[in-house]
Structure formats: C-alpha cells, structure tokens
C-alpha cells in the first residue's frame, strides 16, 4: 500500500519523529527488559540456577501456579456466562452490567486486597465466624486466590462479549430451529466460533493472575514458604539486598510475559484475519 503524496511526510520529519518514538520505547520498555536479564545473570549461571531452584522460590512458584489455577478457570466460566447473557440477549441495564464487569480494571489493586481484609480479616465481617470455625482466609491461600480472582475477573469476559456480539446469533438460531438442544448449540456452534478469542482472554487473564502484586501483597501476610507468590518472593529478596536472586526470579516472570506477548501477537493476527474473513463470508452468502 503506497501512501498518497498528501499523506507522505518529508523524510526529515519521518526520521525525527521515528527517532523520538523509538527513544521513548527504548528508555521505558527495551532497557528495563534488558536490565532484568543482565541483573539476573550478574553473578553468573550457577548463582542464577541456585536462586531459581531454592526451596522458597519453588514454593512461591507452586503457590503462584495454584492461584492462577483457581482464578483463571473461575473467570473463564464467568466470562462465558456473562458473554452469553450480554451478547445473546437484549435486556434493560445491560450497559450497567458491562460497566460493572470492567470495574475491577479501574480499582487499585491495593483496594482490591483491602476489601477482602474487611470481609474476611480478623476485624472484618466474617472474621469472628471464621475464627470460631478455625478457618483462615486472609494471610492464607483462599484470600490470595480471591484477591487474584477479583483483579483478573474482566479479562475473559471483555474479550468474549465484543467477539460474540460481532458474530451475531444466526448460526445458533439455525441450529436450534434444526432441533439441537441448548448445550449442544453451545458446544458445537458457539464454542468453536469463539475459541481463539477465549484463548486470548485466558492468556491475558493468566498473565495478570501470575504477576499480580498489590492485591496479593495486602492479603498474603508474606509468610515464607507458605503464602508467598512469585512476585512477593521477588519483593522479599529485593528488600534483603539479594538483587541477583530477585532478578533471577523476576526473569522467570519476564520470560512468561514475553511468551504472552508472542502468543497475543499471533492471536491478534489470527483474529484479525478471521474478522476480515467474516464480513466477506456473510456478504458472499447474501
């Protein structure tokens, strides 16, 4: 695609704007990225491996995976239900509902943790009841899982809702008219149609769940080997001036972030291709 003359900027302008934009990306994205790996390996590979494999790091990795393993499936079920309700039916107050779904994105992670302390903490609403039953939510795994679920709640729903709205209901209605049951329609028509968008949402949700710091930090109590997720483990090491070990743990999360970006890119491309294909197909049918 060649730009028309009126859209082509003079070379000197192009060059200087590009240089300014790239400097910004370099300062704020590329250099921090390189710093993580340079600092992680500043004491050599053996120290790096030792930091990644020490028991506290391993238990932090386990807890992080467990947390994501609870929060992500819950939010997938929620995302599917919310998208089915919002994208398949017309009802009053729909825009209020979609705003509420996005609400956790606008709430500070610290506030997200705080509210669970207010509900489940020792001085909170359910505190005395939980204490009587000898159950612990705050400063324990359930609190961490809840806070993470709160923070990552919108990610699947907000990918699925616009996608299902754009796809329309014709295929599902046709299947119903032909005699398929509700679940059959969902598994045979809806799910295959939204699978890439669903995967996209799951990836974003997982990335956020694994990396969440503020909300988890408030409810975790920082008990080593028990309630430390990987991001909290990084904070502890950093505050103990064990910088190389902190960056070694950070490099694991950075690698995961880079994989997330790569998968996101390829899905962007795929979804973009599907979106270009869909209207063409529809007009072709008409």
């Amino acid at each position, binding site marked *: 695609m060649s730009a028309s003359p009126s859209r082509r900027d003079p070379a000197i302008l192009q060059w200087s704007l590009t240089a300014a934009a790239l400097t*910004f990306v370099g300062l704020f994205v590329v250099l921090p990225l390189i710093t993580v790996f340079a600092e992680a390996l500043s004491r050599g590979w053996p120290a790096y491996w030792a930091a990644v494999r020490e028991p506290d790091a391993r238990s932090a990795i386990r807890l992080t995976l467990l947390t994501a393993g609870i929060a992500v499936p819950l939010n997938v079920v929620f995302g599917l239900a919310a998208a089915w309700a919002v994208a398949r039916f017309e*009802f*009053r107050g729909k825009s209020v509902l979609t705003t509420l779904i996005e609400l956790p994105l606008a709430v500070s*992670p610290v*506030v997200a943790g705080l509210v669970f302390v207010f509900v489940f903490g020792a001085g909170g609403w359910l505190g005395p009841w939980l204490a009587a039953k000898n159950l612990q939510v705050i400063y324990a795994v359930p609190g961490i899982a809840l806070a993470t679920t709160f923070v990552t709640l919108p990610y699947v729903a907000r990918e699925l809702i616009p996608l299902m709205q754009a796809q329309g209901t014709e295929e599902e209605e046709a299947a119903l008219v032909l005699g398929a049951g509700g679940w059959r329609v969902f598994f045979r028509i809806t799910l295959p149609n939204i699978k890439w968008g669903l995967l996209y949402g799951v990836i974003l949700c997982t990335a956020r769940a*694994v990396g969440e*710091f503020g909300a988890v930090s*408030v409810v975790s109590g920082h008990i080593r080997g028990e309630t430390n997720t990987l991001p909290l483990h990084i904070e502890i090491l950093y505050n103990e001036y064990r910088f190389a070990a902190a960056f070694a743990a950070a490099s694991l999360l950075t690698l995961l972030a880079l994989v997330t970006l790569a998968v996101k890119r390829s899905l962007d491309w795929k979804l973009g291709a599907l979106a270009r294909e869909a209207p063409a197909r529809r007009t072709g049918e008409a």
Partner: protein
Amino acid sequence: MRFRRSSILPGFRPAFGFTITYLGLIVLLPLSSILFNSATAGPRHMWEVVTHPRVLAAFRVSFGLSFAAAMLNGVFGFLLAWVLVRYEFAGKRLVDALVDLPFALPTAVAGISLTALYSENGWLGGWLAALGVRVAYTPLGILAALTFVGLPFVVRSVQPVLEDLEQEAEEAAASLGASRGQAFRRVVFPLLRPALLTGFALAFARALGEYGSVIFISGNIPMRTEIAPLLIVSRLEQYDYAGASAIALVMLSASFVLLLGLNLLQRRNRRPAEAVAK
C-alpha cells in the same frame, strides 16, 4: 417495556443469574465493605483522615504524577501510534509487539528493573546523576514507573482509529490548498482526539491505582514520595480500618468518576458513527 426482549435462544436466566451472583460475591459485596467501614467511622473522622497533611501530600503526589505520566504518554503514545501506522522502518513489528509489554510484565518486576536502571549506579541513573538529575527515590522515579505502566493505553486507543482514517479527508484538504500542518490540525487531529482522550483517561486511571512498580523506585519518603495506595497499606498494617477505608474511598470515587467520564465519552463518539451506519 419489558425487562428482556424475547429470543429463541435458551439460557438467559442461568447465564444472567450466574453473572450477577458471581459479580455480587466477588466484586460488589467486598467493595461495599469500604462504604460500610467509612459509614461506621462517621464523616467527621473520615474528613480528619483525608485532610491529614501526610494524606493530602500523598494525594497530591498520586494525582499530580499520574496526570503528568498520562500527559507524557499522551504525547509519546500519539507519536508512537503515528510512527507505527504511517511510517516504515526496520523492526517495526517488534516495536509494535513491545508496546504491550507493560500489560504483560508484572508490576513488581517493572518496579525493581526501573529502580536498577535509574538508581545512581544503574545504566541510565549514573549518566543522569552526572547531569545532576536524580530519578530513583524522587518524584521523577514515580513518574518513570507510572509512565511505564500507562504506556500501551494511548498507543492502543489511537492506533486503530488512525489506521481506519480515510485518506479522502486529507486528500480533500490538500486539494483545497491546505498545507500539511493545516490538514493535520484541522482534519486529522480532531478525528483522533476522542481516541487520544480515551487513552489518556485509561492511562491516568491505571496510574492512580498503581502500587507494585512505584513502591520500589519511590523510596516512600513521607510528604514527598509517598503515594496514596501505599498509605492505604500502611493504615491497614496498623489495623486502622477506618483510615484505610477513608483513603480507599477517595481513590475509588476518583476511578468511578473517570470510568463514568470514559463511558460518556465513548457513547458520545459512537452515536454519530452509528447514525451514519444506519
């Protein structure tokens, strides 16, 4: 008007019911605890908490620097979107992908990395210190962290609008004798302004609540580099529930206002487009 327009598709009740119950249990009920705790403490105590000099200083730091970071992202995000859409250069696709890094990189990682980079024995910090500029453990460090976390928002709001911008408008302006600068100011920029504003508001909202990346680089000096979310945490650590909820209520109200403004902005911008489509 009935609550729901009829449809032959099944499953509205269970899907809607589950959605509302889940939202209520995970989000709304917990959030209501802030209102409840604030109400229990009473307006006078709340007012005392939020007008305490140290809290006011934290609000100034949080709101001021979040605004500054969003402005910086407004300028450079717009520039980045422009360069990515209009120009060709080596590594463009990689740069485009890297713009999303702040979405994917955990904030604690960003925090320690930016601190290492901008502290006086870091790569950039040493160089800046020679010029007499200290970044880490000063408000500038907070600005750097908040700029990082808000970086993708403006780019990702402006980029798709710029891609869809019709060539005809600019060509018409040019054929009517407008210079490049005039065409940009009078035709292109006004069309991009809503997207720019949306990106700005999103970056601002994100920066306001940010905690993980800031606490490492800010040094958390009372009255100078303490952000409001940090004060919430320290109140909570002292079991001062009323104090924590008072500060949280101010922050929540700010996010509500921003969210509401964004919704109005988007609704206003969608309307003419829809009218044309119909």
